């Protein structure tokens, strides 16, 4: 599919989704919102991690940071501005952190990104308790639920569009080069450090913006809710189960996961997670390329650069 066609599909799809608030009940709209949020998170995660094979567990940190920007700015900043500011805050944090830790690979990188997320969460908990005298924050003036829906949709669509552009750009080629063999890519003139920091910050921007956009849905937010490691893990699972090297894979699996979660978790909370665990193990063992590997031809997989 050429870039132009892909954009056409994206615009058409987003417009169709934008009409949902007039068609669906509140419950179904909330379901659609959660599908779109996870699609956005999974796409933004695989933008960096899928291409480079770096395993980042920092998504929850970016998401929570964005949410707290909304919470701190509530009343002072308009909704749209705080979504943007949340994204920028997360991107700045990612650039700073990335500059410090992106020389680490493999398990070290996974552990330190997870650790950083927890560090931010516990620092915010401590700060709020010690200096503001509160545990969580109430967001009193929440925008309409349809406004939230459209905002999340715009951010997610922007994430997909950015991922499309990045894939076709020099940056995307550089990232895939780093993913196949970082030293060889550097030898061939790729500025690995700059590419990684740029892509890491870009992917954090969307996670942060989504966090900022979703924060108003909760009305009461505290660190355990918005820095919930489950959000980060879920994102990684969705992206890897869908096929992190592809674009469509994470989107499809985000929808599947969210529907499964929503319908099964309330009725059978424990059984649902047992099934999820089993499914995950079986998928990794017998379909390691993700769901996308069933449909995508070999040349589109990793290493087509």
């Amino acid at each position, binding site marked *: 599919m050429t870039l132009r066609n892909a954009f056409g599909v994206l615009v058409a799809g987003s417009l169709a989704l934008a009409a949902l608030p007039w068609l669906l009940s509140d419950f179904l709209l909330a379901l659609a919102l959660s599908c779109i949020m996870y699609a956005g998170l999974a796409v933004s995660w695989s933008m960096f991690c899928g291409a480079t094979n770096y395993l980042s567990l920092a998504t929850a940190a970016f998401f929570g940071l964005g949410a707290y920007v909304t919470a701190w700015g509530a009343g002072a900043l308009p909704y749209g501005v705080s979504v943007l500011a949340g994204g920028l805050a997360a991107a700045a944090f990612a650039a700073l952190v990335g500059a410090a830790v992106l020389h680490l690979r493999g398990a070290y990188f996974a552990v330190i990104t997870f650790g950083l997320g927890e560090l931010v969460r516990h620092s915010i908990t401590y700060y709020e308790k010690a200096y503001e005298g509160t545990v969580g924050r109430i967001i009193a003036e929440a925008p309409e639920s349809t406004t939230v829906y459209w905002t999340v949709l715009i951010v997610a669509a922007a994430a997909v569009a950015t991922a499309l552009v990045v894939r076709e750009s020099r940056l995307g080629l550089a990232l895939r080069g780093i993913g196949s063999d970082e030293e060889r890519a550097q030898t061939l003139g790729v500025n690995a450090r700059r590419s990684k920091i740029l892509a890491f910050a870009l992917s954090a921007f969307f996670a942060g913006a989504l966090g900022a956009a979703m924060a108003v849905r909760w009305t009461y937010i505290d660190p355990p809710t918005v820095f919930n490691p489950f959000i980060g893990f879920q994102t990684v699972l969705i992206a890897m189960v869908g096929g992190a090297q592809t674009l469509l894979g994470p989107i499809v699996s985000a929808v599947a996961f969210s529907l499964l979660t929503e319908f099964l978790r309330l009725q059978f909370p424990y059984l649902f997670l047992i099934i999820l665990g089993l499914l995950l193990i079986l998928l*990794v063992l017998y379909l390691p390329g993700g769901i996308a590997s069933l449909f995508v031809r070999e040349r589109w997989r990793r290493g087509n650069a």
Partner: protein
Amino acid sequence: MSLWFELAASGLITGGIYAVVAIGLNLQYGLMRILNISHGEFLMLGAYLTWLGYTVLQVNPLVFLPVVALVMFVLGVAVYRLCFYRIVSTAPAVEVIEARSLLVGFGLLYLVQNLAYLTWGADLRGYSFLAEPLEIAGSRFSLNRVVVFGFAVGASLLLLAVLRFTLIGKAVRAMMQSPTGAQLVGIDTKVLHPVVFGAGLALAGVAGALLSMIYEISPAMGEPYTVTALIVIVLGGLGSALGSLLGGFLLGVVETFGMHFTSPSLKMVLSYGVLIAVLLARPKGLFAR
């Protein structure tokens, strides 16, 4: 003076448990590149086994310890065969093994933890064992803590001795240094991998059994220990058992002193602070040569 002694002692007791949890995880990672994120869930299983043994069969938890270790070892070999064998033998590169085993670990985490929820419910369970106080150098400790500390250090030292002085320990160390080289001189991966994985789970089970003597247990008790174990491993260096032992003590002491002099709510900030500082300054671990 006695305050310092008390803090140091209680830090070392916590650290001893950290060390046992971390050593098992570290062996698995060092040998097979399996970062088993569900390690803490097997610790939880060990704790529940001990609790069942004490409340249903009325067996002394300390006597029950070898049984727990054996059961967890067998379970570990089975888990390895069912889940990780295929990953290790089919993955094209080390990074792929890491990523896939992490995902399978998440799967196991969900699976085991929620099976425990279904079986035993979310309530805290516990029993009282050796709770009478003991006086050492003018400070009071409950007897079970001292016993737990002794067993934790004992288990860690036993494992270090096995690694250093036995043939199988030598094989494990050889395999960590160079997997290909080890295979060339006739060390059999097919035997060594399941055994080491099983030993890792056995250690997790022992740690859980020891913890159940001091604290109340619940299906979610394992997760924080997995996180702490990851920190300890990075502190001590990936693949180094001695490093994990020292790193465990270090983290236990830092946490205890830090919490006393700042605030208990800063515990996690402290541990992650230590982790990140170490990773930035000495990415190969504190004790790397």
